[in-house]
């Protein structure tokens, strides 16, 4: 993506804009170049409108400050961490700051949560926003006292002239600042703090919504309740792509409390589209949902009704036996062909082969999908929990131009990638329009409508983490060194891991695939795509290779990383940083003495490069005779660059990532039968519970001289193979498919 600073026509002098507030305050507006789109899933790249001045800081007459949080908050802490960055460079005390969530507006640039991109995309921008504001205050004080700016210092929202001891608050300088020429981008960049002087960046600032959360204040999308609101459910075909043939709409309409019932026609394509279904709208949600017991729909289930997980697995196995060694050269889905793998297998001293599989997963954020919309006079106002809020979704649903959409970003009860897709915004917008039209026909004014899915709706209509079927083969030389490596993927919408380690550290490599077809399950990004599954298979198989070589699996990885081969690492992978986290976790976990652990107890290791971060785990666990697993200790080393913005948020994210990995490993699997999802609710899809979690997860953040990157995602993927590799160390049983519950395991 282009840096918008270089966009022709941008007037650098207007980088900062200021305007006086009645009563003595000041609003500081900024151009914030939208440096990067936020990851592969999201929109949010630069556009012409993002060059409009962005209002991030408001100085109030009482010398308190409102700072804008621009991105959606789904639990990753960004509503706290981005304002922290501005506040530090602006040089105010955090106690003086109130944080305000931005609505969706092109003037803020990208407002997307995804790909762990919020910090790398915004860290420098937010610093420049704060530094520009601070420089403006310094210039105002210099003018007021007629002293050189170089004699002035700032802190606590005030400027001090040390030689004379004079001090002025930012608020008191506002009127003068409003009359000054504003600093340009280069001046603001030059005014950035030396990081050793950070006071708020790097601190354990508590979540800005903590008080609202612990007091039960309406904070979440599901809590939005504008006056007069009706509530809706939307009943879709359990088979993907199925359509309503007919429904007893008139009978359901007669139920007490039910206001509107209508068949919704499908619109659009892909994940962000409107499915065929029946909407039931009532005075309150329970009545709308209860009416489903009266609703009778005849579905046209369509072609997907013939598909099943059993069929996909059979096809995958057939594809592998036919073409694992002869698959065509990599095509559009990625792949690699380096050296001569088949020849290298023939001359290898030892060959290792293994089949790995991981299942479809549902995201299951605790707040079921919902959205609220009010359609009135050809315009729509939407309160959305989306990670990728976009006016295009309500516009599609309501059938109106995008400019007629207003969107508010509301805190969401978890995202994990589920809310990268916003079909609930499309659905509620269509329903809200139809409700307004039916009411208008009856002479009634428009009202807002909330759409809320049940947990069962959520599990049946997700965009699932794709399953993966990997067929590995490795060739070792006489010294145990990896010399040939094959990964054949029978693809169920799988991402083919073309660049993954050990590619780049092995002379002969092929990574190829063939498609399981038809495969029509909707798929999408789940936290840390694609390595949330790929790390399990890759880091599991390399552990097998190390074992076959008779070597320490941690040192085996380091030895490979130390010897690039076959064209070297790809995709931005830095082996020095990967080695760094492995060495750190080795030292933290007393890895060398793992041989002294009691029988049935073992330590396993894994590392992963994901979303620009490097993470390694060592897990110590015990497996008893009844296959009950207890995780004893966990050590985690993380390298996400030179600055952790908020250690409290970061430690919480690593803990959460490990706990989520435990869900992936033990119980989570979505299976398809007759084109529909078998699992319905948490009883068939149990997340990790408190008693199962290790009492301590020790996290170490390495400080390396690289730009800071995000942590929502990188800490999840390697937790999975670190656990399964520890199970091998404890029992000698290699885990090659998930979830473990299918193999009779459980948490102790």
């Amino acid at each position, binding site marked *: 993506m282009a840096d918008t600073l270089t966009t022709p026509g941008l007037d650098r002098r207007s980088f900062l804009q200021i305007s006086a507030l009645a009563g003595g305050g000041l609003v500081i507006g900024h151009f914030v170049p939208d440096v990067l789109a936020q990851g592969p899933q999201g929109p949010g790249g630069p556009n012409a409108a993002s060059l409009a001045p962005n209002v991030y800081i408001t100085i109030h007459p009482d010398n308190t400050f409102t700072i804008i949080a621009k991105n959606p908050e789904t639990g990753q802490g960004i509503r706290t961490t981005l304002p922290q960055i501005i506040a530090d460079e602006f040089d105010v005390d955090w106690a003086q700051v109130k944080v305000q969530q931005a609505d969706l507006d092109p003037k803020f640039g990208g407002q997307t949560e995804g790909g762990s991109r919020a910090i790398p995309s915004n860290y420098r921008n937010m610093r420049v926003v704060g530094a520009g504001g601070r420089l403006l205050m310094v210039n105002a004080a210099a003018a007021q006292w007629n002293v050189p700016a170089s004699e002035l210092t700032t802190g606590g929202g005030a400027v001090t002239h040390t030689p004379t001891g004079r001090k002025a608050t930012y608020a008191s300088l506002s009127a003068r600042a409003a009359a000054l020429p504003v600093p340009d981008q280069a001046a603001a960049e030059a005014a950035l703090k030396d990081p050793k002087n950070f006071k708020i960046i790097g601190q354990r600032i508590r*979540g800005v919504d903590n008080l609202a959360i612990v007091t039960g204040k309406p904070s979440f999308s599901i809590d939005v309740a504008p006056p007069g609101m009706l509530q809706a459910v939307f009943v879709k075909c359990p088979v993907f792509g199925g359509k309503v043939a007919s429904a007893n709409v008139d009978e359901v309409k007669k139920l007490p409390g039910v206001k509107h019932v209508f068949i919704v026609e499908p619109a659009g394509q892909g994940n962000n589209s409107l499915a065929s279904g029946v909407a039931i709208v009532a005075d309150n949600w329970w009545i709308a949902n209860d009416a489903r017991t009266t609703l009778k729909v005849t579905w046209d289930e369509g072609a997907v009704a013939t598909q099943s997980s059993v069929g996909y697995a059979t096809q995958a196995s057939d594809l592998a036996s036919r073409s694992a060694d002869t698959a065509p050269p990599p095509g559009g889905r990625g792949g690699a062909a380096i050296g001569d793998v088949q020849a290298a297998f023939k001359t290898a001293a030892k060959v290792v082969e293994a089949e790995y599989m991981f299942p479809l997963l549902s995201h299951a954020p605790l707040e079921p999908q919902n959205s609220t919309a009010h359609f009135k006079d050809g315009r729509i106002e939407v309160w959305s929990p989306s990670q990728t809020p976009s006016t295009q979704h309500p516009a599609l649903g309501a059938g109106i131009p995008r400019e007629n959409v207003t969107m508010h970003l509301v805190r969401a009860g978890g995202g994990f990638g589920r809310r990268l897709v916003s079909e609930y915004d499309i659905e509620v917008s269509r329903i809200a329009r139809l409700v307004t039209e039916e009411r208008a026909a009856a002479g009634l004014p428009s009202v807002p409508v909330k759409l809320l899915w049940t947990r069962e709706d959520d599990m049946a209509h997700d965009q699932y983490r794709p399953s993966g079927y990997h067929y590995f083969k490795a060739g070792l030389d006489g010294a145990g060194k990896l010399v040939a490596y094959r990964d054949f993927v029978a693809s169920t919408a799988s991402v083919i891991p073309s660049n993954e380690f050990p590619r780049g550290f092995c002379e002969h490599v092929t990574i190829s695939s063939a498609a399981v077809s038809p495969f029509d399950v909707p798929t999408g990004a789940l936290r840390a795509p694609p390595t949330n599954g790929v790390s399990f298979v890759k880091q599991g198989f390399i552990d097998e290779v190390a074992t076959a070589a008779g070597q320490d699996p941690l040192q085996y990885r380091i030895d490979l990383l130390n010897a690039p081969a076959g064209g070297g690492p790809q995709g931005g992978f830095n082996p020095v940083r990967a080695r760094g986290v492995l060495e750190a976790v080795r030292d933290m976990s007393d890895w060398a003495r793992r041989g002294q652990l009691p029988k049935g107890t073992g330590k396993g290791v894994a590392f992963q490069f994901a979303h620009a971060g490097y993470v390694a785990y060592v897990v110590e666990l015990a497996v008893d005779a009844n296959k009950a697993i207890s995780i004893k200790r966990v050590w985690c080393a993380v390298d996400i660059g030179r600055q952790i913005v908020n250690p409290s948020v970061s430690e*919480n994210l690593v803990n959460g990532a490990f706990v989520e990995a435990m869900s992936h490993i033990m119980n989570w699997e979505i299976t398809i039968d007759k084109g529909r999802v078998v699992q319905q609710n948490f009883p068939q899809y149990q997340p990790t519970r408190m*008693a199962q979690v290790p009492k301590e997860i020790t996290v170490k953040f390495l400080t390396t001289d690289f730009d800071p990157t995000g942590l929502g995602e990188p800490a999840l993927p390697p937790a999975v193979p670190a656990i399964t590799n520890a199970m091998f160390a404890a029992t000698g049983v290699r885990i090659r498919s998930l979830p473990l519950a299918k193999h009779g395991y459980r948490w102790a």
Partner: protein
Amino acid sequence: MTYSIVVNGETRRVDVPERMPLLWVLRDSLGLKGTKFGCGVAQCGACTVLIDGQPTRSCITPISAVGAKKVATIESLPSDGTHPLQKAWMELDVPQCGYCQAGQLMAASALLAKTPNPNDEQIDAAMSGNLCRCGTYNRIRAAIKSAATNGRRG
């Protein structure tokens, strides 16, 4: 049907179907949005309230079963966040998304009322019905212990 129920010390009258779960009466009839909907089948604990002090899944408790018993929701805790559990939750920065935390706090308050100084096993047993999809369990456990200590001091 008209029902008279006692919620957070106040008698409230509602006119709702007898099968309507307490969760939806609280959220949609009384406007108390702190109690959350997560699964509807008593598996996740997001809807936990206290009924006569007992942690109860309000999503499967029909309004007709409440009678004269006293219902306490997250809104019964001080609105300035000064309850020892609220203070510990904020101090230890427990929430990630925060959606489950009202239910966690109600379960924790019932635990401390009965067991003022719980050990890990007692905490695990009392809290195992409350899911945290974000995985904040270790901070929840630490916050309960911290609140227990501070509650004794207070």
